[in-house]
């Protein structure tokens, strides 16, 4: 009855002594899990369309990489990062900034101004850091910091606002922003990781000392701020006007359709008519993306595996399992957590860049926390937190149901209300809103897994 004070709680999902026996059965489970998903995806391909099936696979791969990043943070450091959306957005912005051509007129109009305001911000921050280091903490220091901040803000604004206006006034219908670097878009995946890592460093410095649910609130808030900035700073990202027509790493369908060699190749498998060629070109393009994404995913999985078996991985798990002992041994736990936070967020950033590449456009308006942040967490928890392969499997399972819940839900409600006639208000209402039931479904899945199978489908494998 009397509850003891809670000890330093490592995530309840990991209990090494019990999980030890499961290492061998995990391999079988993984194969079974992925096998089932493969069957279902083939089923979708046959029953609905192959295009849809491959589209699901592509987005599952992107979500799998995001889930992997989160799993690294949760499994290795027990960090509850609810700011996934923000890091994915940073990656997406990187994809845009790297690949879009620079807008010369805008640079001429406001480029120097932006540079100057950036300089002002940098100087203010450096001054503040210097004051913190030089002066003793106290009222005097706080007032000086505040004064420097205020003056810095005022000066920066006076330079910033006119240049922003100038940039946005330049050809607003087609650009109205600075543009990018015009480099190949595949390079932006790496840059996306860097952007996200930089963001994670700043956030981590501020928020990592906090208790787990404070960290959740802090990261949620920061991701909202990042999205707000991306939506409003038109001079950088065109805001809600979106940047479309990003260059592709794979051929265009139209180019394939016009290529005689391709048309010949299609004629070998079908009647060679217009529709067959069109369908084939779309499939080939999608499959090329699948190939690229799969390569990145396998690369990350391999890196994670190597890290897990290395001394660094063992140290991280040891810190997670007993932070007090780690502290006593002299390990700087906060620094290690920061490392993990940066690495995990960088992975999410790469996935964000990949997503924008797949869509071919940057649409800040589509970043919403339910779809990005919380759905990814459901994937991690359901798949098996602490197990990277589990996070990937979870991504496939959850994304599949997220997409298929709509047609399946419609089917279900149609059968349930088949007794009612077509004009019945209730039936019409239920059919219209069937898509919202998938939120309920996701929530129930998460709650059931948390309660009955907290280790997920693929529990964590303990390596000694």
């Amino acid at each position, binding site marked *: 009855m009397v509850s003891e004070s809670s000890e330093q709680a490592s995530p309840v999902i990991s209990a090494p002594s019990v999980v030890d026996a499961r290492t061998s059965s995990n391999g079988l489970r993984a194969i079974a899990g992925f096998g089932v998903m493969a069957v279902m995806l083939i089923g979708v391909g046959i029953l609905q369309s192959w295009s849809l099936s491959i589209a699901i696979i592509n987005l599952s791969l992107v979500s799998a990489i995001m889930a992997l990043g989160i799993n690294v943070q949760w499994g290795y450091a027990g960090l509850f990062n609810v700011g996934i959306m923000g890091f994915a957005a940073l990656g997406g912005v990187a994809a845009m900034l790297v690949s879009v051509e620079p807008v010369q007129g805008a640079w001429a109009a406001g480029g120097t101004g932006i540079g100057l305001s950036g300089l002002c911000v940098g100087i203010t921050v450096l001054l503040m850091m210097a004051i913190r280091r030089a002066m003793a903490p106290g009222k005097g220091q706080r007032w000086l910091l505040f004064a420097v901040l205020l003056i810095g803000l005022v000066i920066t604004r006076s330079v910033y606002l006119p240049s922003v206006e100038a940039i946005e006034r330049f050809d607003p219908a087609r650009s109205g922003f600075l543009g990018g670097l015009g480099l190949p878009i595949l390079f932006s995946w790496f840059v996306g990781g860097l952007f996200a890592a930089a963001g994670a460093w700043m956030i981590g410095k501020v928020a990592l000392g906090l208790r787990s649910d404070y960290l959740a609130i802090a990261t949620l808030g920061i991701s909202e701020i990042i999205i707000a900035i991306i939506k409003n700073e038109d001079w950088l990202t065109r805001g809600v006007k979106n940047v479309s027509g990003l260059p592709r790493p794979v051929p265009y369908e139209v180019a394939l359709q016009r290529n005689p060699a391709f048309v010949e190749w299609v004629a070998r498998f079908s009647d060679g008519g217009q529709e067959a060629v069109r369908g084939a070109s779309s499939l080939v393009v999608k499959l090329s993306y699948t190939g690229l994404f799969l390569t990145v995913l396998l690369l990350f999985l391999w890196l994670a595996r190597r890290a897990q078996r290395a001394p660094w991985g063992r140290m991280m798990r040891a810190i997670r399992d007993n932070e007090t002992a780690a502290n006593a041994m002299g390990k700087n736990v906060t620094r290690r957590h920061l490392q993990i936070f940066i690495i995990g967020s960088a992975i999410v950033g790469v996935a964000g860049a990949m997503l924008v590449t797949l869509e071919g456009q940057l649409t800040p308006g589509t970043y919403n926390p339910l779809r990005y942040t919380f759905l990814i967490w459901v994937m991690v928890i359901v798949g098996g937190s602490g197990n990277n392969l589990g996070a990937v499997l979870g991504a496939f399972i959850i994304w599949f149901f997220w997409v298929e819940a709509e047609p399946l839900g419609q089917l279900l409600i149609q059968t349930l209300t088949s007794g009612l006639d077509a004009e019945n208000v209730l039936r019409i209402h239920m059919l219209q809103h069937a898509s919202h039931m998938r*939120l309920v479904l996701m929530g129930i899945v998460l709650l059931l897994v948390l309660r009955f199978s907290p280790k997920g489908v693929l529990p964590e494998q303990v390596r000694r």
Partner: protein
Amino acid sequence: MDILNALVLFANFILVPGLAYGSQLALGALGITLVYAVLRFSNFAHGDTMAFGAMFTILLTWWLQSLGVSIDPLPTALIALPGGIVMSMGLCLVMDRLVYRHHRQVKSAPVVYVIASVGVMFVTNGLVRFIIGPNDQQFSDGTRFLIRARDFKAMTGLNEGLSIKLTQGLTVLIALVCMLALFWFLKRTRTGKAMRAYSDNESLALLSGVDPQRIVLITWLIVATLSTIAGVLYGLDKSFKPFTYFQLLLPMFAAAIVGGIGKPAGAILGGFVVAFSEIALTYAYKKFFRYLLPEEHQPDSLMQLLSTDYKFAISFVILVAVLLWRPTGLLRGQS
């Protein structure tokens, strides 16, 4: 120098909206801080619990309106409120029984409770959207204004008008009544004292014979009441849209933490701090300065510190600032 006009402008655009929004945030933050104090986790489902209670109130209001029931000049929603509260209580108790009770029994880590509350948030959000749809819903009736701007101008002869909506006045009044009732309950009744004891030191409270099941039950009942009232007041004042309630989660958390989480007085203080900051920092003070400054110094630009798009960012920046400089909040709540 036209001080009166400047003051009326300030009252109309900052003071009155700030008081109304602050009361709404304060009521919401009270719910969050109570759950944190007694159940010891951050309830991410709180915004959607507000939406759920507000949704049922709206449905009842529409039904009452269709029957022709009206308490003009007051909005009909006030009669429907108890019905919404009862349904919200039902939701909270069901969720506690199905979800949180298990985790209490196995003594899960705090972060697991938060993830569970995310699951509850999904379910509640989906249910609200399924039942009432994701769009804006209007359900307010009754008189709109306590004082109209032009009546005020006619009465006082000033250039600036002050308009106070009935819903704004109702919000402040009802929030005040709720806060007083809550404080009376916590300070004067035995159950309230038991709740405070349980929140301060669980082991000692249990040793003194406090029944934890009852405490948890009462907490959820109070949280359901406060969140429904907050949700309905917000919906009457602005409008009801399920997504907005999820977005409100951040300012409410900011309010609870800024004031000192675990302390009801902190939630109220935090609510007003966040509300006034949001409004005051994004207001364009051009006209204000025009009234106060002499001719030569009148400003040309809008004199707006931050664009209104950054309203939510402000509450968060305040939160981060408080977490860095005074982690236990202004009134030094639980850590």
